[in-house]
């Protein structure tokens, strides 16, 4: 039971929600950069939140399903066709065996997610299926997908895999091939990812203060920044009016995290993403809050963004609200399934 890669796309990788517990060894988190879309994709496919899926950057792959499968596409808006039939995102879609799924360019946003019922079966490395491109391990040999790759899909239900999640994973979530339609069949209902994703960039990216101050103190939040083409899974390089530090002494290297806003000597900030290194020596002028990392991950080269400084209780309230929306989505999906 495999998923055959006919064309790899620009940068398609196997990811789950990341590799935790090894940062003291210099092993970063990696994982889906937009963890919100990844979670919703798995919920729609009937999986626990942390199952391995594909992360698709800017231009998608061409895939053949060697068996019937329930899938969901979330994250960036991209052109998707299953056997020539347009497939919309943020809903469950049942595909017949032999179906060819063509994922084109991302129209809005930078990263789409393809979740498949049962998940993609790769050997976990240090407890995670996530591809770490810089360290070159995890996923498929630590690299992006290329034509000819065969990804094993679950052909039986891994019962008991559902611990750690608030969604009870019903093995029946993998559709029975005998009852599957012969044509790609999208569900008649879908989910709205707002406000957790917002491709119009109306809401600023919110951050907590970092250790290092700039002059004037409000400089980071007063101007718009443009995302440079030199951005990658490690971080977004931003272009804007150069920032100046209050204290320009050399810093001792210290731990950093996804969301940390670093300021190299050229005064152009770098915001770290999921594949961030574990330790960094640049001054840190802020930290993007966890609830806004998904929106950050969806910024494309050339997009502009604004920052807004908030306080810790507000950051926590925003994180809680996002988790509550995910919980309500999981319940709503369950209910729809029971009704259908």
């Amino acid at each position, binding site marked *: 039971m495999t998923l055959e890669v006919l064309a790899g796309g620009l940068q398609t990788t196997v990811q789950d929600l990341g590799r*935790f*517990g*090894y*940062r*003291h*060894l*210099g*092993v970063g988190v990696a994982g889906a950069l937009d963890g919100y879309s990844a979670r919703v994709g798995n919920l729609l496919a009937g999986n626990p939140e942390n199952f391995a899926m594909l992360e698709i950057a800017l231009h998608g792959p061409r895939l053949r399903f060697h068996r019937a499968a329930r899938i969901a596409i979330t994250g960036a808006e991209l052109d998707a066709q299953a056997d020539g039939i347009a497939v919309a995102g943020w809903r469950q879609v049942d595909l017949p065996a032999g179906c060819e799924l063509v994922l084109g360019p991302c129209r809005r946003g930078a990263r789409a997610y393809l979740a498949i019922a049962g998940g993609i079966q790769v050997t976990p*490395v*240090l407890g995670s299926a996530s591809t770490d491109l*810089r*360290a*070159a*391990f*995890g996923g498929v040999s630590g690299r992006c997908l290329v034509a000819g790759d065969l990804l094993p899909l679950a052909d039986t239900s891994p019962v008991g895999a559902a611990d750690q999640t608030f969604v009870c994973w019903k093995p029946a979530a993998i559709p029975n091939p005998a009852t599957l339609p012969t044509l790609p069949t999208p569900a008649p209902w879908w989910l709205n990812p707002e406000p957790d994703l917002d491709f119009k960039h109306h809401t600023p990216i919110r951050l*907590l*203060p970092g*250790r290092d101050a700039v002059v004037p103190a409000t400089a980071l939040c007063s101007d718009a920044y443009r995302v440079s083409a030199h951005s990658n899974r490690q971080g977004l390089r931003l272009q804007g009016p150069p920032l100046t530090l209050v204290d320009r002494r050399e*810093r*001792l*290297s*210290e*731990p*950093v*995290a996804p*969301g*940390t806003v670093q300021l190299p000597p050229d005064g152009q900030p770098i915001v770290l993403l999921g594949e961030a*290194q*574990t*330790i960094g020596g640049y001054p840190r002028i802020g*930290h*993007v*809050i*966890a609830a806004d990392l998904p929106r950050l991950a969806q910024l494309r080269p050339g997009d502009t963004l604004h920052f807004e400084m908030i306080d*810790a*209780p507000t*950051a*926590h*309230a925003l*994180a809680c609200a996002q*988790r509550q929306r995910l919980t309500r989505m999981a319940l709503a999906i369950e209910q729809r399934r029971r009704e259908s």
Partner: protein
Amino acid sequence: MSAPTIERLGDQALLLRWGDSADIAVNRRVHALAGRLRAAAAPWLVDCVPAYASLAVFFDSATLPGEDPMAVVAECVSAILAGEERRSGATPSRLVEIAVCYGGDHGPDLDDVASACRLSAAQVVERHSRPEYLVAMLGFSPGFPYLLGLDAELAVPRLATPRVCVPAGSVGIGGAQTGVYPNAGPGGWRLIGRTPQCLFDARRAPPAQVMPGDRVRFVPIDAAQFQALHERET
């Protein structure tokens, strides 16, 4: 020694800092606290990342009560710190020996380092393999050990242009620091030797042969010994 400052590292972690210098006594305290935090096994602990003079504590805010989860974590860390003050003596740490073939193809920058330090190549090797180093932290790439204890005479600036590919196992000096590249990749430190030992393998448990807080000694070997050990490792 003064107590560390506690600050936020975003909304999912806090950072403790013991000043701004890379000091062996300070770094030992970092590792001691990291060990005690892990031993306490709080349900919210996600990652505990030591550096030269700082320690990041990553927590799962969903499992913590109240309006500001960091306050709960900070309180717990402070309680462990207070307990630490009452204890005396250093925690014992492991000594790891790393075999190094200095110079030649394995250490292409050894002669440059020697002339920059006004020493002979043999003196550089002697001074580099004499001390017992402390693994201050792992970072830069998986398993890369930053070592404290380099002879001050051996400090040399990094390369103006980093190498595109440093061979796995290369031992380098960058400023006042020394370390080992566990895997092939780009790097700007001056390479004085190479170890045949595999320092990091994600498929192994534990993946890193050298852990933060360990002590390290470099043992000089010749090219024939390098070859023999290298064949045994692969």
